[in-house]
């Protein structure tokens, strides 16, 4: 197990480096921050002065070399927009997104496993029909739609929830809802379909034939077998949360990493983009290792090379 971790960490470090190189060069293909940060009417001389001050006039490889050297000293560079250390900005924003994603995933998983399993017990039954319709609708509603309609209904009309911002637990209700609806719909469907398979598998049939009457026991066996694809899809949904959180964070004014990322991309604030990508990448790599561990736990036959 230890050698597995060591190997996996090594591989992840290499991927991380690849990612850094990719983001560094590809991001710079999308234009120069000089143009974006300065007003449209800025004279050329001022633009050139600005570019020189921040090193954008240097050849790309020189810029990259400098970036790597800084990185070795754990210096991620500074934000062009407000001069703060990029890593500090990212680490400040990260917990918000992590919390949002955590609650959204937790609620999604609980609802999906319960609903999906019950629906799988009798495919085509009334419960299955209703659960399918609701979960599919959930999986296909645009999340900014939920966000804005949510504000209009719950804040403006009913005056039950605050419109936006952070502070009390009430503030978290709408953002978490916006985030969990889609993954929940998708996961419910995945749980349902793999549970149908699992319940029909010879393993469970044998258990039934052997006279295991208890639904709980049968469910338990089937669920364990059905979890493999669920874990995979849940992992992907969780990894996609940074992208999903952009909308929730933008609309509700949550200072998370999704919002930070989109702002930085729009302004070509490269240092912050790079730091944000790296921090999320590390989180995703950790998540992937957890998923692999979950595979091993769920299915002892799966071995890792």
């Amino acid at each position: 197990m230890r050698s597995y971790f060591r190997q996996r960490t090594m591989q992840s470090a290499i991927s991380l480096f690849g990612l850094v190189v990719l983001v560094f060069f590809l991001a710079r293909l999308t234009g120069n921050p000089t143009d974006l940060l300065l007003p449209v009417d800025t004279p050329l001389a001022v633009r050139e002065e600005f570019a020189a001050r921040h090193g954008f006039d240097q050849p790309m490889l020189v810029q990259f070399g400098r970036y790597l050297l800084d990185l070795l000293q754990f210096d991620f560079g500074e934000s062009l927009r407000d001069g703060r250390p990029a890593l500090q900005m990212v680490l400040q924003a990260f917990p918000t997104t992590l919390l949002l994603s955590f609650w959204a995933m937790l609620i999604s998983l609980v609802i999906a496993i319960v609903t999906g399993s019950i629906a799988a017990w009798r495919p085509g039954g009334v419960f299955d029909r209703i659960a399918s319709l609701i979960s599919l609708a959930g999986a296909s509603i645009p999340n900014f739609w939920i966000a804005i309609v949510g504000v209009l209904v719950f804040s403006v009309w009913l005056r039950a929830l605050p419109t936006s911002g952070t502070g009390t637990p009430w503030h978290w209700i709408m953002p978490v809802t916006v985030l969990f609806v889609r993954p929940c719909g998708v996961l419910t469907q995945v749980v349902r379909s793999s549970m149908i398979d699992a319940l029909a598998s010879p393993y469970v049939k044998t258990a039934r034939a052997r006279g295991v009457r208890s639904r709980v026991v049968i469910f338990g066996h089937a669920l364990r077998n059905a979890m493999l694809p669920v874990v995979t899809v849940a992992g992907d949904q969780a990894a996609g949360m940074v992208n999903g959180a952009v909308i929730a964070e933008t609309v509700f004014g949550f200072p998370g990493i999704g919002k930070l990322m989109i702002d930085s991309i729009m302004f070509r604030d490269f240092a912050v983009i790079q730091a944000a990508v790296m921090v999320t990448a590390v989180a995703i790599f950790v998540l992937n290792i957890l998923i692999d561990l979950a595979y091993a736990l769920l299915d002892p036959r799966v071995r890792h090379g």
Partner: protein
Amino acid sequence: MSDMTHPTAAAKPPREHALAEAFLMLWRDKFAFLSACFLLLVVIAALFGPSLLPDQALQMNLRGRNAPPFELERGWLYILGADNMGRSLLARLVIGSRYTLMIAGSAVVLALVVGTILGLIAGYRQGRIATIILRGADILMSFPSLLLALIVLFVLAPSVGNVVLVLALSRVPVYLRTCRAEVLEIRERQFVKAAKVLGASHARIVFLHILPNVVPTLMTLATLEFAAVMLSESSLSFLGLGVQAPAVTWGLMVADGRGYLASAWWLSFWPGVAISLTAISANLMANWIRTATDPAQRWRLEKRTRA
């Protein structure tokens, strides 16, 4: 993961009855039947809509901006209301179906095919190739899709093909990882081991024994992804990185109408409904196909047929 220990034992009805039987089974399942009808309608709209309503969807009428739905005085084309340029929403929905289906369909298929192939390799072959593929997927997963969209927009141009490319690229890891996870499990099963012992070639094992068992899960995923891709396309449009006017997609309509949710909800409501209904129908159909083609499940539909 229906365990097809005896894959050849599945009973196959004679070919001439198959169609009639399928239709009968579809008819018995009212939800699936309605879904099929709706999908058919959407496909017809996508195929013939643009030639039937070439001008109505582009005809501007600034005096009739945001005309509310369910008023017939402007004619039946305005039954769903008008958009912020006074254009018929119904006509735009019909016209928009073509690009919507084209983009979502090609992105899903592209991602599915590439992801499945890579997933089969990564799951079956383990070792160095698998490691490279999986870490590549990690990189792709942690690469912000928005940045990806921006890069494609800049280096290439914002065209329908490039939107498909962005959407497909960012979804490949999902199929790849799901496929690999399934393969890891299936390759340890008795019938695969038996095939190996009997000296079957790798290609034979992968395509004859493993792939058929992976397909059901991937199909479920793909139909679910169909909705996700339509919505991603909408987000791209909203950020200005997606399809550009005068081309129309439902996602673009939802994004454009978003600013009017408080004052003219119908602008983004109807295209949103179109996306949801299409996604739901596609999924219900997929569920039905799975049930109908799975020998272990088929009885659920047949029982009613014979009852």
